């Protein structure tokens, strides 16, 4: 039992710089010895369990420059916004309903207040609840280092179980996506053991509707593979077709086929496959209703 979750067993230096630039300098200086801390809701747990032992912890919570929203043709979310703020920001946003519901499902009060959207994505977990809805929006993330700034597709961020393409000296500053078309709505479905819990499996659906025709049906899944994933084949079944119950069933079955869950985790592969089909249908129906147009 080489673990002590009462304390952080190893020593480290704590830094709380005032500017992004200082943060980037520190990351450059300390390389793999440094870790960013935002809300700490993942990092502290990992440090207590001895899974991460950074000798420098760089706190970005003070940085107002990471807490902003921009509305318009491109919607921009500062990576330092905490869950509560993002949830409140999107509370009445019908197209982005999936993101709202995903955050609503997280932790509860303390985690909503502490956890950040940037931390959720940077942590790299396939279970990150904000990833599936953002994937259905074709979101991009902005990564910044002293020497470069790059904008990458969110779908390319996660490259393996708990792995991202982010460099040690990079921070995530922003999440952005193109404003969603009208007659769009979304939903997020989560199966977990208890009300506030890490997921067994999740499914986000974002639907654009043209009367009876499903113009677009973007589907993304969490904890369904080593990385958060889209289900392109299933999406193509729905896309451009008039809605029918049969089509819904066919798509649901395909979502089940498309996932690639690991044999470990919080439920069985079998159960995950069966659940995504149900969750997709539940999510789709709610989104479809909300997306408006004639029934």
């Amino acid at each position, binding site marked *: *039992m080489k*673990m002590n979750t009462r*304390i952080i067993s190893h020593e480290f230096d704590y830094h709380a710089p005032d500017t992004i630039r200082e943060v980037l300098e520190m990351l450059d200086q300390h390389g793999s010895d440094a870790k960013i801390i935002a809300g700490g809701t993942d990092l502290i747990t990992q440090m207590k369990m001895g899974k991460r032992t950074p000798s420098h912890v760089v706190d970005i919570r003070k940085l107002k420059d990471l807490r902003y929203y921009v509305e318009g043709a491109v919607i921009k979310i500062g990576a330092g916004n905490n869950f509560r703020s993002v949830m409140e920001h999107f509370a009445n946003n019908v197209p982005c309903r999936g993101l709202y519901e995903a955050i609503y499902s997280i932790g509860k009060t303390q985690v909503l207040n502490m956890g950040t959207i940037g931390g959720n994505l940077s942590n790299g977990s396939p279970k990150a609840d904000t990833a599936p809805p953002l994937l259905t929006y074709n979101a991009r993330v902005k990564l910044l280092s002293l020497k470069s700034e790059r904008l990458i597709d969110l779908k390319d961020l996660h490259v393996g179980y708990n792995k991202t393409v982010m460099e040690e000296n990079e921070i995530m500053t922003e999440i952005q996506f193109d404003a969603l078309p009208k007659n769009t709505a979304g939903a997020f479905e989560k199966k977990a053991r*208890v009300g506030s819990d890490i997921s067994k499996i999740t499914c986000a659906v974002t639907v654009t509707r043209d009367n009876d025709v499903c113009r677009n049906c973007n589907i993304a899944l969490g904890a369904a593979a080593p990385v958060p994933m889209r289900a392109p084949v299933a999406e193509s079944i729905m896309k451009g077709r008039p809605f029918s119950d049969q089509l819904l069933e066919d798509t649901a079955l395909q979502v089940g086929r498309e996932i690639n869950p690991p044999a470990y985790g919080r439920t069985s592969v079998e159960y995950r496959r069966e659940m995504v089909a*149900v969750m997709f249908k539940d999510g789709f129906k709610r989104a479809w209703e909300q997306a408006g147009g004639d029934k």
Partner: protein
Amino acid sequence: MMEKNKFNAVSKITRRKDGMAKVTGKETYSSDVRLPHMLYARVLRSPYPHARIKSIDTSEAEKMGVVCITYKDTPDFKYNERQVSIPEKTYRDRNVLSEKAHHVGEGFAAVAAKTEALAEKAVRSIKVDYEVLPGVFDPYEAMKPGAPKVYDEILLGENVLPIENNIACKRQVSEGDVEKGFAEADFIFEHEFKTGRVYHAQMETKSVVCRPEPDGGITVWPTTQSIHNTRQLLGAIFDIPLNKVNVHRVAIGGAFGSSIQMNTCIPISVALALKAQKPVKLSLTREEDMYDHCKYPSIIHLKYGLKKDGTITAGEMKTVVDIGGHNIQAYPLLGCMSGWFVSLYRMPHLNFEGTAVYTNKAPGCAMQGYGNPQVSFAVESMIDMIAEKMGMDAIQLRLKNYVGLGETFWGQGPTVRSIIRSCGVEEMLLKGKDMIEWDERIKPEMKTGRYRRGVGVARGFHTSGTGAPTPGEVIDYSTAMVKVNEDGSVDVSTALMCHGGGTLEAIAKIAAEELGVPIDKVGISPSDTRNTGYDVCTHATRGIYCGGASVQRAAKKAKERLLEFASRLIDVNPEALKIYPEEGTGQGIIYLPGTLQKNISVGEVAKMAQLKGWGTAIGVISHRQVNCPPCFVTNFIEVEVDTWTGEIKTTRAVAAVDCGTPVNPDLAAGQLEGGLCRGIGLALLEDTEYDTESGELTCGGTFVDYKFYTPVDMPPVEHVRTFFATTYEPTGPFGAKGVGEAANNATAAAVANAIYNAVGIRFAEAPMTPEVVLAALQKQAGVEK
């Protein structure tokens, strides 16, 4: 019978005396105790479920300037952390530190250092050469010849007890002739039930601070439900006279039974403190705590014989309990399980056989209900199955056979028998039935659609304490001191513990009621073992019934003295005087009923008695209750099954208790709600699984993956309804019985019965997770997989 509204303090809703400290974070728990020069301890624990130490090297740790002890340095003394049984029935299989691990997490060595981080570093530097032994994780495997032996021998009392086939102990109880009873039956029913290895998940992990004293004694601030048992055991292990072992009562952050025993971290900190000659604190991490104890899981085989008219002719229960790596209280557990079985329904002929088996897992110990939720899950599920097969209403079958008023009750096992003198079973079943609209129930076959609701009922009970007319195998008595101060206020001193449920609040009310002073005038004194008489433990749902009874008697003595003083002052025979709490002055007023003159306040009398040198109005008493009356419970639960996902939500619940007079009505209702929450968890969610390769918990020992329900998982507040049966227990303080453990005894079966009513599938194994439920639904629907 005294009516509720005649009470001045009892049954009133008050602001808890410890409430302000708790909600503002000012309460001192044992992990908050900080002393000058205090060191922090960490324990080297076994990574293997079954291993022996070949050699151990602490030199690296010692170089770090820490104090280090190993199993070689601790007393050669086998102990059982539970001190409630008489010595002849106490199974002793552990040492302060062990040279053999019986489960992952067993302690071999410990260090104390200036910081916890340094202690952690030092403990990790200890080198151990292990002989890893094959482990055994299944009780049936463990009983097979040739299975790995968890123990060769242990001590029973002072005698060596060889352990055969890993059987820790057995118990058999029978009455009448069970074969004859089954022969007389028209129908025989048999089924097997299982419940999981639930973790207590008490909020505060176990913790302790020990200070060595210059006179060779020790002072201890532990997490415990019994300061006196902790003291006695420490005295025995370390050979210190009891007057030099002082154990303080510290607020506890939840218990559920996890600290009934003297926790194993306590003697480790004592050993370190004695060596360091400095105070030492040892606070368990959550993962250590999860490897330290769990609820006893159960496998219960039931058989009942019934006449056509629904009368039970005979019953038999066979149980196998996987107790894990230590025998903490398996022997009394089996006795109690027989008692829980026998006292639910009348059986002229009966047989009980219980076997407790060692395995290489975290040891089982008492947890809310002590085998009772397990037994009630089996029996109350079975009663529903029988009712269904016989075409009887499940409530009628219960009413026909339950053990009630005037009947013999042996809830705490065969050696603890008494007669039931208060019983609200029928009232709760009939009232609850209306509240949940029982008669609207339809059969599962008639339900269609994805979401199906069902309603289930189950009964249960717990004993209030373990008292009986004759001393049995279990010790039960309490000591209290009540004194009237010179301003009319009152101090109550007792070693009784409150686990957060409001026991001491009730104690204050009982003292106030008996003395006739306002509740605000009563204070609960801090206590330690030097300044209080013995109290066995706050366990067995005995706090109010047993502890309260002793306080009531002590208060009565103090009152007698007070009235005697008053009689000298106002010239009235003391027997004629009464006391009532006057709101305006906030004083108890001594008066002669029927007259307006001759009034004098309690404060004035106490002050005059002091000035005149008459003495203090004080009462001290040690009292044993000679009954342990059942506090009955009834749960009605509605569930909604999602037949597409196997998920189950509880949507409505009615929880009723017959606790006699509810001394703290709001807190007792809270107990019912808490009991529901844990009971639903037992039914649907909670269990600790083991990896049989590594012997580790698959949840890793943290709350990331050990889950229990919280308010968000409960039915909406407006759909959780509680009520009290209107009974009065003649042997209890102001008619009171217990609540605590009873609260969750009926719940798991009520959930299982509700699921049956929803979808027509009988789940006999808990937890009924969505995965299990979905598979069963698909099997029922004939889905090929």
